[in-house]
């Protein structure tokens, strides 16, 4: 799951790119217009790959972007979204499959599925049994991004590999001086918080949530802001020193800080108490009009070189085992992107919440954020 | 009412050198950008006068009123009230009230509140205001309408509320800006007399702006006829009418015939004149006329008699053809074309029924007037 709210400029730029892309490819496709309507996260693709797809197949890609799972889900549930391929996160995908939103994939049309990574497929089977409805696009983790120098200055022996950084009042109160941001996403912060408290993150009972609420309220005063994208810039500029966020976003902050040469080194860690792993899945809505084209697109992306270019562009791992040899070394060798066995042990996944649990989780989050 | 003209005859403070004027305009000039609304005006107005400013729109009469009310300040010169320079006193500090042409009644207030507005503003007690408002309502006979809002009143009633409101504060000077303009003719005439009675009864000084010469003639003690920011003539109504000092004034007040003449000779006050056609006229006038100069004879139509036979006796007479007859009930105006193409008018009372009238279209007739009927105008 990438981010719940995207930076406006980026959104605008992606929209612009998508539009110009659509315009430029419309010239290529001629007599028999084949089109494909894709709805993906913003800033989540290498545009050259899309261009190449159009050049090769003559299929014009209308590429739209969203920035929250909720937005995508509401469009899908309302029906007649008009999209042929969408990329929800796995836990959302799970309940969307149950609701009957998607159609089964015709795997005979996706020979490149042989390139996929079993380790990922197995984990996804928890949401999409038998991998019948979806193919992994990219995946990543939730963790702690921090500015090495600033943290050292505020708290020399800061436990950078632990949720203590944000969940322990003694530590958080110190780091609050240089600023803490937390993702504004209840379903991605509350489960790790439960793990931190030693609770079973799958048991989202009212009692357990109450405990999480109490814990979070204690550190609430030290959290400068709940936001799902601003931490990239804030971390890179040195406005804050700690951010709980998505792995790829933290790496973006890292490279921005390195480019700026402002004396800030951004690091990412997956807390040892355990954190969330998320998967963004390609799936075809039941009412899609260009089903064949959608399959062709998935097959195209599943070509190792194509998927590798996307991972290169956005610093996220993908579910394509065969692509790994084409991905830049600094990405595949980064344990925060491609985790080692040790790190993988600390990562867990969440199953979709039922609506009652969802409500409780969201309500807990509102209570933490607003104090109401 | 009957003795009112008698009273006004003796009321002429402007002739009394011991009288101090209530209001004095001293070389007042008012410009709006390039436009000169008032040009170096000097004028005195006396207490208890009913002073009328008369002239066409744009002549500066409204500017004078607004200068007095304080809505405008003079570009140069001074305005004095009771000897005190008020040129730069704001409107709310002046002992002057105004009745607006549009009445300017406050639409969100009742009649009672409107009338009491100025009193309340003065900080008078509720009882005092109440009493004065009652008095004012009685004065304008609007007692039953005290609780109405202006939009629930007729035009005449609104006019009276506006009057009551402007009188409530007992101003030293009441300014009336075309107060009767919005009323129909009958109501206007009735109100004219009401205003005159009121002014005499209250002993206040009124200054009225009007473009209606009849209204000015009826009500005013003196009239200032204005044109292009200048007072052309300042006199009593009868003097303005009988002895206009210029063609402009003569033409503005009532109907008039002009005949351009050259002075040939004179014998004392009797002058011998000649028009362009060579018609000779005689004139008895107190005005000194230079022999050889060009003047205009102004003759009021009602002083010109039309007849079929050549008139006998000591009169001026010309012959012409009846071109048109304008019938207006009590009188008829004959338009007679002279041989040179000019037209002279004669207004005759219809003493007989029209059908018995001896003169009709295309008749050759004589026009005549007495030696004292015409006024010689040099400009």
């Amino acid at each position, binding site marked *: 799951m990438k981010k719940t709210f995207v930076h406006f400029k980026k959104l605008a730029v992606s929209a612009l790119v998508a539009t110009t892309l659509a315009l430029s490819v419309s010239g290529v496709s001629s007599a028999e217009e084949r089109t494909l309507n894709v709805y993906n996260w913003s800033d989540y693709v290498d545009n050259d790959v899309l261009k190449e797809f159009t050049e090769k197949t003559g299929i014009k890609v209308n590429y739209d972007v969203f920035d929250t799972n909720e937005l995508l889900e509401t469009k899908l549930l309302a*029906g007649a979204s008009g999209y042929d391929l969408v990329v929800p996160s796995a836990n959302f995908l799970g309940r969307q499959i149950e609701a009957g939103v998607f159609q089964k994939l015709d795997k005979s049309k996706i020979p490149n599925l042989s390139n996929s990574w079993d380790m990922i497929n197995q984990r996804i089977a928890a949401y999409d049994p038998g991998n019948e409805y979806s193919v992994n696009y990219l995946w990543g983790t939730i963790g702690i991004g921090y500015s090495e120098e600033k943290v050292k200055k505020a708290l020399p022996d800061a436990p950078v590999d632990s949720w203590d950084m944000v969940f322990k009042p003694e530590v958080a109160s110190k780091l609050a001086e240089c600023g803490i941001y937390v993702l504004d996403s209840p379903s991605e912060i509350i489960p790790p918080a439960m793990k931190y408290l030693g609770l079973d993150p799958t048991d989202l009972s009212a009692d357990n949530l109450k405990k999480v609420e109490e814990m979070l309220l204690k550190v609430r005063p030290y959290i400068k802001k709940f936001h799902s994208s601003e931490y990239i810039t804030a971390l890179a500029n040195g406005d804050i020193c700690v951010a709980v966020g998505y792995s790829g976003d933290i790496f973006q902050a890292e490279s921005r800080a390195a480019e700026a040469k402002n004396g800030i080194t951004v690091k990412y860690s997956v807390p040892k108490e355990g954190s969330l792993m998320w998967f963004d899945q390609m799936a075809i809505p039941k009412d899609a009009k260009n089903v064949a084209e959608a399959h062709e697109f998935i097959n195209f992306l599943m070509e190792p070189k194509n998927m590798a270019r996307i991972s290169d562009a956005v610093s996220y791992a993908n579910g394509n085992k065969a692509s790994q040899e084409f991905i830049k070394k600094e990405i595949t060798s980064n344990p925060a992107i491609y985790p080692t066995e040790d790190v993988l042990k600390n990562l867990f996944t969440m199953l979709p919440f039922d609506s009652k649990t969802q409500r409780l989780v969201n*309500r807990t989050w509102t209570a933490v954020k607003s104090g109401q | 009412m009957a003795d009112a003209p008698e009273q006004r005859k003796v009321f002429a403070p402007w002739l009394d050198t011991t009288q101090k004027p209530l209001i004095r305009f001293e070389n007042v000039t008012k410009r709006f950008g390039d436009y000169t609304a008032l040009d170096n005006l000097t004028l005195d107005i006396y207490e208890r006068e009913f002073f009328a400013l008369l002239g066409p729109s744009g002549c500066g009469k409204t500017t004078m009123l607004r200068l007095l*009310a304080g809505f405008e300040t003079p570009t140069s010169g001074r305005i004095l009230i009771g000897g005190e320079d008020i040129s730069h006193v704001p409107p709310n500090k002046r002992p002057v009230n105004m009745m607006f042409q549009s009445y300017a009644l406050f639409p*969100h207030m009742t009649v009672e509140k409107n009338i009491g507005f100025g009193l309340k503003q003065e900080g008078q007690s509720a009882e005092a205001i109440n009493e004065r408002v009652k008095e004012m309502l009685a004065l304008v006979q609007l007692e039953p309408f005290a609780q109405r809002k202006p939009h629930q009143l007729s035009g005449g009633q609104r006019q009276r509320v506006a009057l009551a409101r402007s009188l409530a504060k007992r101003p030293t000077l009441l300014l009336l800006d075309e107060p009767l303009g919005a009323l129909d003719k009958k109501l206007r005439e009735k109100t004219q007399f009401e205003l005159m009675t009121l002014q005499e009864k209250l002993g206040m000084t009124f200054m009225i702006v009007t473009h209606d010469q009849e209204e000015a003639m009826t009500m005013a003690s003196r009239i200032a006829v204005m044109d292009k920011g200048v007072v052309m003539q300042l006199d009593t109504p009868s003097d303005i009418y009988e002895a206009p000092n210029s063609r402009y004034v003569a033409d503005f007040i009532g109907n008039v015939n002009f005949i351009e003449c050259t002075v040939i000779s004179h014998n004392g006050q009797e002058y011998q004149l000649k028009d362009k056609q060579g018609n000779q006229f005689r004139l008895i006038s107190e005005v000194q006329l230079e022999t050889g100069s060009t003047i205009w004879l102004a003759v009021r139509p009602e002083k010109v008699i039309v007849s079929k036979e050549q008139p006998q006796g000591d009169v001026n007479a010309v012959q012409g053809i009846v071109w048109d007859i304008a019938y207006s009930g009590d009188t008829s105006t004959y338009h007679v074309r002279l041989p040179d193409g000019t037209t002279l008018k004669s207004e005759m009372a219809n003493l007989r029924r029209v059908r018995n009238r001896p003169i009709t279209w295309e008749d050759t007739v004589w026009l005549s007037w007495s030696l004292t009927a015409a006024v010689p105008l040099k400009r």
Partner: protein
Amino acid sequence: MQRQFDWGRFLLIAIPFLWLLIFFLLPFAIVVKISLSDTANALPPYVPTLNLSEGWSGITSFFSQLDLESFAWLLDDKIYFLSYLNSLKIAFISTLLTLLIGYPMAYGLAKAPQRWRTVLLMLVILPFWTSFLIRVYAWIGILKPEGLLNMGLMSIGLIDQPLAIINTPTAVYIGIVYSYLPFLVLPLYATLEKLDQTLIEAALDLGCSPIQAFWKVTFPLSLPGVVAGCFLVFIPAMGEFVIPDLLGGSDTIMIGKTLWSEFFGNRDWPVASAVAVVLLLSLVVPIVIFQRIQERQREAEA
């Protein structure tokens, strides 16, 4: 003699009614229907749905499954009440602030020389030419710690620490006042511009200072414009979502945001619809009052 049916007249009345029926009543009925349904993991995400193929029994079973559960839920959790209350507070204060800023603006516009008015009016309307969303986003750029305002204030030495404005209620007020200012200024300007200038002169003539004349004449007579403008600010501010979401902090709870999270976050369309129905009903009351005032005004002017 039978009077012939007047089709023109009928259409003239029927068209606006049809418009209201199709674009207001029908959608509202749908929202009410959803609010009476129960949430489900389905497409659409609520039950029951009307199944006409089962005939009459389909219809009766559909109606028998509707209930007021969602409305009862609104009473269960104080968050809804607090959201309404907070929205009310924010809408009220914003309206007041808008009036305080908008009145002098409208007054200045109405008093400006004729040749300037078109230009000034244009300046009031001009922001409408840009997307509302972009204008609100622009405020982020102005108000954020490293934004224009803080940089400006710091560079002239007024402050040495950036002011925390963004993500606070202050930013929400700024956003609402900015966004809705024209809605207040324009009707108010229309009222003030029509105001007979001689009424002010009459007040001055009767002893008012210019300030007294304003309060005794100009202001009371501009009240219809004030009321119209205030409603045009208050009503949309009450349901505002975008501004608190972009400029407000996480502790700024407003009914629009709560509705959004019910709809998107909780996927609970019935409760979201119930929130919307209550919001609409709570706005209908001031709208009806407003209409009454307008009607009375029209009668008075007639």
